[in-house]
């Protein structure tokens, strides 16, 4: 009986990927029919070509060095952005003056084109620091926005209880703010994780730090190696999903009992 449930879960997860793989296969076939010669090679490769490119990449030492280097940069940017966003949210919620001064700046960062920041930071610092800095910069407004809303939505009655029962500020944060903010933290981390990968890899493509996923993606464009472009993109998506799953798993452990 122990294997029945996971098997059922795996089978129920199959139709969506199978549908999209099938659609991809049909589209690649149509491209192959319409554009004679190098259609699949240059426009839309077959899934099997991408799989072969991926298998060839995974077997090399360079692949793992590249993946680890990008993962390190983007995780650093994500972590910095989360800490900074949380600090700014606390500050802007605690002080109306801080809110008046900082909120417009954070909104500008959120609205400004990421390419402008990439070029500016490239000029100010150097290519190696750009992906982490850009990831952090893109994550800060998301975390700030979500946590600010969460802090403002904390139950006033529980805060009154904390004051009346003479909780220290530390106890108020640990016992009331953090558990109340749990859904907002979860939502912020999920969005921020995806954004950190997108912006970080985009920065790598423009700045070409060595080694990096972005640099590899850039070279595939340079050599028109489209199956490899798909393979590196799949690796980026997979890493983003794994990181998101890890963050979600950590948060699921927090509050396991009371949410049942």
């Amino acid at each position, binding site marked *: 009986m122990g294997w029945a449930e996971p098997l059922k879960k795996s089978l129920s997860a199959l139709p969506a990927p199978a549908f999209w793989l099938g659609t991809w296969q049909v589209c690649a076939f149509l491209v192959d029919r319409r554009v004679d010669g190098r259609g699949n090679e240059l426009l839309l490769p077959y899934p099997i070509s991408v799989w072969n490119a991926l298998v060839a990449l995974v077997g090399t030492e360079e692949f793992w060095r590249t993946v680890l280097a990008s993962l390190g940069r983007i995780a650093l940017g994500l972590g910095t952005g989360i800490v900074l966003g949380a600090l700014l949210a606390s500050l802007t919620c605690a002080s109306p003056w801080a809110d008046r001064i900082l909120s417009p700046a954070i909104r500008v960062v959120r609205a400004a084109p990421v390419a402008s920041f990439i070029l500016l930071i490239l000029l100010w610092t150097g290519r190696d620091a750009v992906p982490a800095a850009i990831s952090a910069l893109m994550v800060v407004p998301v975390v700030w926005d979500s946590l600010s809303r969460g802090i403002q939505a904390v139950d006033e*009655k*529980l805060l*009154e*209880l904390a*004051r*009346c*029962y*003479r*909780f220290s500020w530390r*106890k108020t944060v640990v*016992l*009331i703010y953090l*558990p109340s903010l749990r859904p907002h933290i979860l939502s912020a981390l999920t969005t921020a994780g995806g954004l950190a990968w997108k912006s970080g890899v985009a920065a790598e493509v423009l700045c070409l730090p060595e080694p990096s996923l972005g640099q590899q993606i850039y070279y595939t464009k340079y050599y028109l190696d489209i199956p490899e472009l798909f393979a590196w993109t799949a690796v980026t998506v997979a890493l983003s999903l794994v990181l998101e799953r890890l963050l979600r798993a950590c948060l699921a452990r927090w*509050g396991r*009992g*009371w949410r*049942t």
Partner: protein
Amino acid sequence: MILCRELSLSFGDRAVLDRSSLRIPERGVTALSGPSGCGKTTLLRVLAGLERPQNGSVEGISPQKTALLFQEDRLLPWRTAGQHLTDVLPKERWGEVPALLALVELEGEEGTWPAALSGGMGRRLALARCLALDAKLYLLDEPFAGVDLPRALRILERLRALPVPILLVSHEPAVLAAADTVIELDGPPLACI
């Protein structure tokens, strides 16, 4: 003797306390009773320091020496029954948790989450948490709402034995009958008693 002298408090145009005066004995249970909106809860909140009266004074107790049981349970869904008590008790008094739970007839429920408690059990847990606070006056706003009457009377008997005065609000005639002193309020606003 705790004395409320000429307390006045309005919310906008509505006067909730109008030169209200009140004496609370130093021991035993004093019950406040009266129709809704006559200022009973507001009076408890003034004594707890959560509302500031526009006029008048409270003598014989400071808000820091009171413990208020709110009209709502205000339990934390993410803390177990036992944790609700250890959250307000100093570490050296954590051993008192079973006795406090027994006082409100929640023996053995230390590990229970609030979501698994019935309405009456949640009320009793909120009461135990309030009693865990170190206070010179307990202010209990409808402590037995949702609690069955025989159990409420048993708990009230235990409260009467405490060395700290209790001022409670109740609409239940049997609870009022069991209190040491009853203050009946006619209607809004709460006037000189």
